[in-house]
């Protein structure tokens, strides 16, 4: 079976989840979308060739367990506990966010042709999909007022970076990938605790209320 033929639809699906992340206004949907991204990414280290060494299989499993199961679980648990408003008010509306995302996608497509990509390293569409995911994450972090949505943005950016590194994971050492995953996991865990405290102290997870510290 030609694995490359499977890869392109996956990347297109990833790009679509990004656009959906940018236009949706319900936190619950955002969490499901980020879980879908995690599930797609778990397949990324399998390409471009179909042979599967043990360490790669381990990595794929770890990615699926953390990105597609653990993160969404942590996030939805936080969401349930804090009893927050399920609707999010962005600084930047859905239309403008989507336009920014599409702008990011076009820029990534253009950039791919400008950079001397080592032949055979990136599967088709991987480069623009990864870069668009990073852009989407950064847009979410910057333009959303809700602390939980900012964490989801951080995760999306991290997903994009992970996808970038996926073709290199065949040559890299698996412990390093795993410790990076562990770091991000602990990071999200700590952020979850912080959100819990923010909700208790400020009675909201709206970062607009952070206005004491400034010069």
């Amino acid at each position: 079976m030609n694995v490359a033929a499977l890869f392109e639809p996956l990347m297109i699906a990833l790009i679509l989840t990004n656009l959906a992340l940018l236009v949706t206004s319900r936190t619950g949907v955002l969490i499901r979308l980020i879980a879908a991204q995690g599930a797609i990414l778990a397949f990324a280290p399998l390409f471009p060739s179909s042979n599967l060494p043990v360490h790669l299989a381990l990595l794929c499993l770890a990615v699926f367990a953390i990105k597609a199961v653990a993160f969404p679980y942590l996030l939805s648990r936080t969401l349930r506990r804090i009893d927050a408003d399920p609707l999010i008010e962005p600084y930047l509306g859905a239309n403008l966010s989507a336009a920014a995302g599409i702008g990011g996608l076009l820029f990534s497509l253009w950039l791919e042709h400008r950079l001397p990509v080592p032949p055979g390293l990136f599967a088709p569409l991987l480069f623009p999909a990864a870069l668009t995911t990073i852009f989407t994450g950064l847009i979410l972090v910057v333009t959303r007022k809700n602390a939980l949505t900012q964490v989801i943005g951080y995760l999306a950016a991290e997903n994009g970076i992970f996808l970038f590194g996926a073709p290199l994971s065949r040559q890299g050492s698996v412990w390093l990938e795993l410790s990076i995953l562990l770091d991000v996991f602990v990071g999200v865990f700590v952020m979850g605790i912080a959100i819990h405290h923010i909700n208790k102290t400020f009675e909201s997870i709206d970062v607009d209320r952070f206005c004491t510290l400034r010069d």
Partner: protein
Amino acid sequence: MLLLLLLIPLASAALALAIAADTPRRLILTLAAAAHLALTVAAFAAPPAAALGGLLDLDPLGHLFLAATSLLFLAASVYAVGYLRAEGKGQRRDFQEGAAFSNAPERIFTACLLVFLAAMTLVACTRNLGALWVGVEGTTLASAPLIYFHRHRRSLEATWKYLLICSVGIALALLGNILLSVAFYDPAAASTSMNLTDLAARAHVAQAPWLKAAFICILVGYGVKMGLAPMHNWLPDAHSQSPSLVSALLSGALLNCAFLGILRAHQICVLTGLEAFSQELLTIFGLISMATAAAFIVGQGDYKRLLAYSSVEHMGLLALSVGVGGGAVFGGMLHLLGHSLTKGMLFLVSGNILALYRTRSCHDTRGMARAMPITAALWTAGFLAIAGSPPFGLFVSEFSVLSAMIRQGHTAIACATLTSLAVIFVGMSVPVLRMVQGPRPPAVTGEAREDFFAVAPPLALCALVLMLGLYLPESLIVILTRAAGVVVKGL
């Protein structure tokens, strides 16, 4: 031995979590810090072998950073004994907003301090860029609970900003690492290592466009954590809201670790012949940082924020010293050591001031000379040291950086640096000296805390900074020269 350096703080952290009694836990903290410093110093006599298959490998550059971190951590942990004893348990009133708050449990605070030390040790003791990234991200996660020790609104705001801004920044540095692997990509190789030695061996195959993109990502990513302007927004908030001994560690040790990440990327640029590119960027960020710090220091009304902006200034100067290169790098390494010790001392002293006056305002704090004479003397000495006046170590380092700039024909950069330094000197001297002089405000009652734990650590740091200015031992010159050699030559 390198493994031991990492395991001592980790094991002590586990022990600190397990022990319920306060006094033995505080003893463990100081003992672990002392053991860590003893091992670090012993490593100068007998360079330790690489451990974990080359993953832990201490080179002269990392060793200098490790020594600065370890020294400061010992001072902070001795200070912590008195600080934690004075803090006590239970609810208290926030002096700024009047709301009631409590502190984080002391055992979690102590454990996080020790894990923080372990993460910084990993950063200093590795030449593998991947492991370095893991260490830097580890420092963020271990230090976030430290900033949120006083559980009130402002510290929570500072913690959230720190956590989110630094995590996104460090994610960019990870992207930089990946771009670096792309630059060194070899389809025929079975495995690629991110170890500096291995990368150096393949320097000739590296592709310049990817390398440049990687350096920009790493510089911006770790630059966020290092506090280079304009990515410094989290820094004044986190430094002003955390307990003073944590501020001392953030400023004197954590910022250095992020700088080490940038230096490692700079080393790769040197090895691949791109040093002109990285030096130019470091110079630009250095100058922007110094100018930004000068703008915010003038008229600053909060003395802990004042110290935080002073850190932005000194990080800028460090970036500048590497940006200029050549002889300035030696001065930069001396400056790094001097800044860690001086800023650590100043933040510890600011904790004593805060304990008596219960305000961070430079205007409401008056009459320190009468109310707390030792602290006032240390505060004045620390100000003179950080502003780069003789006879302190920072005078020597700033002088050697500036003279190297002029010798190498960077007169315009030297003039810009001097202007910023002069503005900062005046801007800092006004509030600092006003705090020392004048009458003690009648509202400030209570006894100044000037016991052994509050005074001895900053005093020891002050003595060291003074020594750096008056007399540089031959062995220290060798250490600094070798560290600077690594930066200049790339390996």
